[in-house]
C-alpha cells in the first residue's frame, strides 16, 4: 500500500495513458479488420439480415372487349413449394399437406423424398388452402405468391384470346401476341426488414402491373356468332366451323368463332386440334366464293360489264381435256347471272378474258398468298403459285376457286375490301392499350392498298346483292336489309386418293350488310357438313342469323321494306360471249 501511495501521480497517469493507448490500438486494429479487411463479407452478411428480396405475384394485364367487359383477369394465388432437404418428417408433412391440398399422400411423399433441392407441391392453390398451409408452419415447406389467370367467360372467344400457362406466360392467341404488353414489371422488390422479418420500408422500385388490353371484339356479337356457328355445325354433323364478323371500314374483328371451342382454363386437357385458331391457321380452297376476286378483276379492267352475256354450254365446258361442270344447266346468261347462280362455265369464260397475269396480279393484290398481318400468332399465308408454274388448267381452276388455298381471314378481308369501296384493310383484334400510368393508346386502321375503284366496288355490290336476292345465297337474305355476298362449296382433296373427294366439302358464305352502307362483313365456313350440303344451304343461314341479331344489337334500322328489293340493272347494251 505504501508503495502505491509512494508512486507519483504523473507516473500513474502515464501507466493509465499507455494502457488506454494499448486498448485503443486493439480497438483500432479490430476496426481495421472489420471495416477494411472483412468489409465486403460482413457488409453482405449484414445486408442479408436487414435487406430482403420479397417476391410478388405477377400482375398480368386484364383483357376487356371493345365495350370494357372483362374477358380475362389475373388474381393472386399462392403456390406451395418444398425444399426436400429441409423437411424433417416427410411422412407426417405429406399427410398434413395432403389433407389441406386434397392431394394423394403418396404423391406428396414422393416429392418430399426426391433428391431435388426444390419441388412444387401444388401451383396456384385457393386462398383458403394457402392460408391453411401457412398456418401449418411446416419446416421446409413454403408459399410463393403467383398470379392465376381466370377466364370468366369460359370458352368465349377462346381461340382469339388464347391462354397463359402456369408461369403466367402467354402460350397462344392474343395472350401470346401481346405478351410484352401484358407482362408486368419486376416480380420482386428489395425491402428493409426488422429482426422478425417484417417489412420496415421498401428500397427498390415498386413492381408495376402489365398493360390492360381492349379488344375489337364485342362480347354480344361474339356470343351470337359462336351460338349460331355451333348450332350449324351440330345440325349439319360437320367436322368444324368458323365464323368471323368484321367492320369492313376499319378491319376491326368484332367476332371470331371456331367450332369446336375449348375452355382456356382447362387448356392442358384439350387437344391441340381443338385449340387451333382455324380462322387463320387452316387454308382451304375457297371454291365459288373466290369468283368474287375474278369478278372484281374483270369489272375493274372493264373486260366485262354486268349485263354482258355468256353462254352456259348447257352446264359443261371442257378445258384441256378436263370437264368443268355446273350443278345446273344454263343457256345464255348475263354476268350477273354467272355470279348469282355461281356458274362455273361462265366463270371459266370470264377467267379466260381476264388472263393469267392479270388475274394473278388481282389475286395477290387482294391479299392472297401472303399473311393478312393480323395481330394474332400462327397465321397461314395460303398458297397461290406464280403464273409460270400454272398448268393449262390452272386459269380455269382458279376462276372457280381451286388451285389456291386461302384462310377464312383472307377471304373476309377480300370481301371487306369490296364492302368498303375498294381498300384492303389489315384486320386487327386489338382496339386499345391502357398502360399502367393510365394513358390509353388506340390502334388505328391500316389500309394496305387500294385494290379496286369505288365504282367497281359499287357495281360488284349490286351484283353480289343479286346472289342473295335471287341466286345461290338466298338463305342469307335478311328482311329489312340488303345483303351482298357470295356462296362457295369447295370439294376437299382426299389425301388418301390424291383426288377431290365426292363427299367431303367446305361450305362458305361470305358477305356484308347493309349492302349500301356496310357495317358488317361476315364469313361463315362449315367444314365437312354431312349429306347434301352447299354454301347456300349450310353457311348462308348462319350468316343471316348472325347479321340479324348483330344489326338489332347495333340498333341498325332496316334500310329496305321487308320485301326483297330487286338489284339495279346496268342499262348498257349486253355483249355476247
Amino acid at each position, binding site marked *: 500500500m505504501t508503495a502505491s501511495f509512494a508512486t507519483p501521480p504523473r507516473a500513474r497517469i502515464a501507466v493509465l495513458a499507455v494502457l488506454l493507448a494499448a486498448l485503443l490500438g486493439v480497438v483500432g486494429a479490430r476496426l481495421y479488420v472489420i471495416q477494411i479487411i472483412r468489409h465486403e463479407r460482413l457488409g453482405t452478411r449484414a445486408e442479408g439480415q436487414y435487406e430482403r428480396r420479397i417476391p410478388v405475384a405477377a400482375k398480368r394485364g386484364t383483357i376487356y372487349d371493345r365495350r370494357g367487359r372483362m374477358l380475362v383477369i389475373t388474381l393472386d394465388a399462392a403456390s406451395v413449394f418444398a425444399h426436400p432437404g429441409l423437411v424433417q418428417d416427410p411422412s407426417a408433412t405429406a399427410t398434413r399437406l395432403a389433407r389441406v391440398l386434397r392431394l394423394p399422400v403418396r404423391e406428396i411423399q414422393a416429392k418430399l423424398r426426391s433428391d431435388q433441392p426444390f419441388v412444387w407441391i401444388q401451383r396456384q392453390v385457393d386462398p383458403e388452402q394457402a392460408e391453411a398451409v401457412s398456418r401449418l408452419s411446416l419446416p421446409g415447406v413454403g408459399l410463393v405468391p403467383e398470379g392465376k389467370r*381466370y377466364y*370468366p367467360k369460359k370458352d368465349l372467344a377462346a381461340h382469339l384470346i388464347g391462354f397463359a400457362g402456369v408461369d403466367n406466360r402467354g402460350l397462344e392467341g392474343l395472350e401470346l401476341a401481346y405478351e410484352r404488353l401484358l407482362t408486368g414489371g419486376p416480380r420482386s422488390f428489395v425491402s428493409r426488414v426488422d429482426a422478425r422479418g*417484417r*417489412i420496415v*420500408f421498401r428500397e427498390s422500385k415498386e413492381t408495376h402491373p402489365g398493360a390492360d388490353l381492349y379488344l375489337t371484339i364485342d362480347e354480344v356479337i361474339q356470343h351470337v356468332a359462336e351460338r349460331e356457328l355451333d348450332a350449324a355445325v351440330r345440325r349439319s354433323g360437320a367436322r368444324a366451323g368458323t365464323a368471323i364478323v368484321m367492320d369492313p371500314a376499319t378491319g376491326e374483328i368484332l367476332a371470331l368463332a371456331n367450332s369446336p371451342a375449348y375452355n382456356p382454363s382447362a387448356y392442358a386437357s384439350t387437344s391441340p386440334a381443338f385449340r387451333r385458331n382455324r380462322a387463320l391457321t387452316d387454308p382451304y380452297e375457297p371454291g365459288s366464293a373466290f369468283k368474287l376476286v375474278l369478278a372484281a378483276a374483270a369489272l375493274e379492267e372493264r373486260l366485262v360489264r354486268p349485263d354482258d352475256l355468256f353462254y352456259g354450254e348447257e352446264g359443261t365446258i371442257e378445258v384441256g381435256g378436263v370437264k368443268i361442270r355446273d350443278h345446273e344447266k344454263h343457256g345464255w346468261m348475263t354476268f350477273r347471272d354467272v355470279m348469282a347462280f355461281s356458274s362455273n362455265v361462265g366463270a371459266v369464260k370470264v377467267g379466260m378474258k381476264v388472263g393469267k397475269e392479270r388475274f394473278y396480279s388481282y389475286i395477290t393484290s387482294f391479299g392472297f398468298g401472303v399473311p393478312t398481318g393480323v395481330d394474332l400468332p400462327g397465321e397461314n399465308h395460303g398458297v397461290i403459285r406464280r403464273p409460270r408454274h400454272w398448268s393449262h388448267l390452272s386459269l380455269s381452276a382458279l376462276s372457280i376457286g381451286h388451285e389456291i388455298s386461302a384462310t377464312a381471314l383472307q377471304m373476309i378481308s377480300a370481301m371487306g375490301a369490296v364492302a368498303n369501296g375498294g381498300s384492303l384493310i389489315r384486320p386487327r383484334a386489338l382496339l386499345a392499350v391502357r398502360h399502367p400510368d393510365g394513358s390509353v393508346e388506340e390502334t388505328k386502321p391500316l389500309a394496305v392498298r387500294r385494290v379496286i375503284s369505288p365504282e367497281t366496288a359499287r357495281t360488284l355490290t349490286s351484283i353480289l346483292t343479286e346472289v342473295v336476292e335471287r341466286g345461290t345465297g338466298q338463305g342469307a337474305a335478311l328482311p329489312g336489309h340488303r345483303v351482298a355476298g357470295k356462296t362457295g362449296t369447295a370439294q376437299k382433296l382426299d389425301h388418301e386418293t390424291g383426288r377431290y373427294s365426292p363427299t367431303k366439302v367446305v361450305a362458305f358464305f361470305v358477305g356484308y350488310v347493309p349492302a349500301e352502307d356496310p357495317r358488317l362483313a361476315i364469313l361463315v365456313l362449315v367444314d365437312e357438313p354431312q349429306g347434301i350440303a352447299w354454301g347456300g344451304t349450310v353457311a348462308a343461314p348462319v350468316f343471316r342469323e348472325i347479321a340479324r341479331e348483330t344489326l338489332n344489337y347495333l340498333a341498325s*334500322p332496316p334500310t329496305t321494306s321487308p320485301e326483297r328489293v330487286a338489284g339495279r340493272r346496268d342499262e348498257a347494251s349486253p355483249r355476247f360471249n
Partner: protein
Amino acid sequence: MAPEVRSGSIQQELPFGVRARRAKRGLSPESKQKLIVCGVLLLGLLFYVWQHIQVVRLGYQIERHRAAQASLTQEGKTLRMELSRLRSLKRVEEFARRELGMVNPRPGQIIQIEEP
C-alpha cells in the same frame, strides 16, 4: 524551504469538494459554452433517434395499409371476376330461355325508335 506556489498548480491540487463548491457559485463562460454545445448535440442525437423511430413506425404503418389495400384490391378483382362470370351471355341466355321461357324476337317485333 517553503514549497514554491504557482497559480496553475494550486488549482490542480484543490480537492474535489472545493471544486464542486466553486462550480456551484457559477460556471465560467467557457464551461457554459461547452455545456450548450453538448446540449445541442444531445438534442440533435435525440432528434435523430426520434426521427429514426418515426420512420420505422411509419414504415410499419405503410406496410399495414399496403397489405389492407392489396387485400381490398384482390377482393374487388375477385368480385368483378365473379360479376363477369355471372354476366356471361351463354349463362344468361340459358337462364332466360329455360327458367323464364323467353324467346328471340321475331321480325316485326322489334321497333327502332329514333332519339328525339
